[in-house]
């Protein structure tokens, strides 16, 4: 009787879920041991985190604020993956969306009921324009979108720094490096969580449904999986590539708009909080599933929020970052291990 490991091509959902739970638990235990080794009291800290996050409505609201942009940037990356493209530039599109929405809010007068939809459109367009060049370069010259989208992130970051500290600097002079407070706020949904939260969830659901239940979604599925087969079936691969990538950019742009209009209310450097890059991790955690992005974003938001709480408890930022990394690393390992099962192979009866 020999015991062996066998790798299955696809893991069963129950096993995958269990593997994730175990992975997160192990990551936390490891982090706890590390914290204990550095003289902190991990159990007390954990208790503090749990109490601050789930013990009161406020904690959950904080998570709700973080989850909104994460759903959208995660969705942005997941959507591009559908056609086989890696959008590393959700970060830049986020900035571009925030920038465009702020511009509209600052320079066009009007009541909020008109301005918020306008800002929303501007945000989407900003993100879309930011991914336009990488999209066309990929579609017509086969230039890898990986590098072009990434490079544009730096451009967008610098652009926002520049306007927030220069031309658009708050004339009232209350703040040093931000624009004036915008006059139009996303209305609140629950507590401090604005309507962007249900909108993000709705967008994820609509996108998922579009991929599953429309002809267009089917074509994108085929084209993303095997462009040759799309050609064979007479599907316009290039058109789908362009539309899907632009959609991906627009979604990240919307995330940026909601962040200024709902949470920060000003445009400032660093407004993205790395949400664009974290979106890549959210999409990977969700294995590219548009609905899964909601769960992935929730997990990521809890991790981020716990990090903030730990910082207030005197744990330094790099430790927090290390714990975040540990959790992601363990989940990735858990995902892979979920593909294996143990088999015992009996020798043949001779």
């Amino acid at each position, binding site marked *: 009787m020999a015991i*062996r490991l066998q790798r299955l091509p696809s893991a069963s959902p129950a096993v995958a879920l269990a593997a994730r739970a175990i992975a997160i638990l192990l990551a936390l235990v490891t982090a706890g041991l590390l914290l204990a080794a550095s003289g902190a009291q991990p159990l007390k800290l954990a208790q503090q985190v749990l109490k601050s996050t789930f013990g009161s409505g406020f904690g959950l609201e904080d998570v709700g604020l973080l989850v909104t942009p994460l759903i959208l940037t995660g969705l942005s990356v997941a959507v591009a993956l559908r056609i086989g493209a890696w959008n590393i530039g959700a970060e830049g599109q986020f900035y571009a969306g925030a920038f465009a929405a702020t511009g509209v809010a600052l320079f066009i007068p009007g009541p909020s009921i008109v301005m918020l939809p306008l800002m929303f459109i501007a945000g989407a367009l900003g993100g879309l324009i930011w991914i336009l060049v990488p999209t066309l370069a990929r579609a017509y010259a086969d230039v890898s979108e990986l590098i072009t989208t990434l490079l544009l992130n730096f451009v967008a970051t610098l652009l926002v720094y520049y306007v927030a500290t220069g031309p658009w600097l708050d004339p009232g002079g209350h703040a040093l490096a931000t624009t004036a407070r915008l006059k139009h706020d996303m209305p609140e949904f629950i507590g401090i969580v604005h309507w962007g939260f249900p909108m993000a969830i709705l967008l994820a659901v609509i996108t998922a449904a579009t991929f599953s239940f429309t002809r267009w979604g*089917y074509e994108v599925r085929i084209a993303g999986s*095997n462009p040759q*087969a799309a050609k*064979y*079936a007479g599907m316009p691969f290039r058109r789908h590539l362009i539309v899907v990538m632009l959609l991906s950019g627009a979604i990240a742009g919307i995330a940026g708009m909601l962040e200024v209009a709902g949470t920060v209310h000003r445009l400032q450097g660093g407004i993205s909080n790395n949400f664009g890059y974290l979106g890549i991790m959210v999409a990977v955690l969700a294995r590219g599933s548009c609905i899964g992005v909601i769960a992935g974003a929730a997990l990521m938001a809890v991790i981020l929020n716990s990090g903030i709480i730990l910082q207030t408890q005197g744990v330094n930022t790099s430790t927090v970052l290390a714990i975040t990394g540990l959790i992601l690393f363990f989940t990735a390992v858990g995902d892979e291990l979920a593909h294996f099962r143990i088999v015992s192979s009996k*020798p043949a009866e001779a």
Partner: protein
Amino acid sequence: MAMPDVTERPRPAPGTPPLVQLRGIAKYFPGVVANQDVDLEVRPGEIHALLGENGAGKSTLMNILTGIYQPDAGEIIIDGYLKSFASPVEAIAAGIGMVHQHFKLVRAFTVAENIHLGWSETPRRISAQELEARTAQLSASLNLAVRPDARVDELSTGEQQRVEILRVLARNARVLILDEPTAVLTPSEARELFKALKEFVARGNAVIFISHKLDEVLEISDRITVLRGGRKVATEPTSACNEKMLAKLMVGHEIVLDDLRARGPNAIAKSNEPVVSLREVTARDSTGHTVLNKVSLEIAGGEILGIAGVAGNGQKELSELLTGMRAASSGQIMLGGRDVSAASAGDFVDFGVGHIPEDRLRSGLAPALSVTDNAVIREYDRAPVSLGPWYRPRAAAALARRIAEAAAVMVPNYSMPIRNLSGGNQQRFVARREMRIATKLLVAAYPSRGLDVGAINTMMRYFVELRDAGVGIVVISEELEELLNLSDRIAVMFHGEIMGIVDSAGADIEQIGLMMGGQRAATPVRAAAMVH
């Protein structure tokens, strides 16, 4: 079909243990018994053929022997020692190497780089020249001609296969497993391969050879093992076998070959108007080379036109042209009286043109997607699979089930990736899917590649049914015998041109052979074809 000359082979000394012994191997996939109770013994110096219907479990068994899959029961004994392989790397270290039906070379690398990739004996730091010199040396010592500095994507299929074999033999394999190696080879490439295999086993090594071509199995093998439904049904010396009994062993009953050219009583006669006509069509590849030169052809409804020729003489391009996947650079394509020279593949589908492509995995399927997704690729844009812009997964699954049933393919789970089906079953599935939409024209490139005898026979019968229903059919094949049996006329291609078109009835095989080598048909035949 020459019988093998068994007497000449070195016989292993009595008492030599078999190189490979499989005992009681079983492998289960969800809903499928791929192997059960399989025993196999491979002796030094022999070419051992493995036969069986599509889905009989041949590839699975070999994947177990090479460590890609782990058996659910049974033992692997190599040279008398019990072994277990966790990966192909361990199998090759024990002297067992496999060349898969779908090659696994890195296309952007040179031959030398591919040979040395992932090999423990490759020096850490080495220049391209040295790599190529080492490869040339290996190639000479193993008597397998390759071009070390060529990039893999410029090689013909036969050359790529030689690189794969060299890659395995360079790692000192003593057992070489070939999964349907000749399905993609020209007859002369196949002969070269056989020569190399005989030399290889003459050195005391062994070959396990999977094929659906009974004639070549009888020609080259020493012993034959037949699998049916995952179980071994027989192992016989080749000298005691013939095609008929092998076919019977594989399917469990005799196969009656039909007379295919005869038309049934209710058959629609060949139409006077062609469904498709090409007028002086020229096509170029991306580098500007002429791949089709002034091809003129007419295919009538209710006729089967065979395209003969050595692979790589423009057949693939012709099939792409006839299905809208490739644009002509000059000339005119008419489909049922409409000029479609500028139409897309989608337009051709709407017009009722089905296409069984040459490379099914690469262009006819999305291997990573589900059976259902792949089933509806031709009909997703019409009812019942879609209503307006909406796609209906349940209707799609129902269509997938219908196609699988018609193709006689057992699918345990329609949401599993289609690449989990056996090679031949993927093919049957594509063929059936295409026949559904081929109401005017069916273009079938090498339709019998990878199919078992029974399945070939069934497929030919389907073609005949379509023909009798008035559909025009173009069959591209290298098997002249198959074309002569099936088609009404045969066009012969050479260097992107049509050398001539002959009637199959009373065709002169020798003349077709000459045309395949580049000689034009005698004037009367050609004139008849052009006037048509």
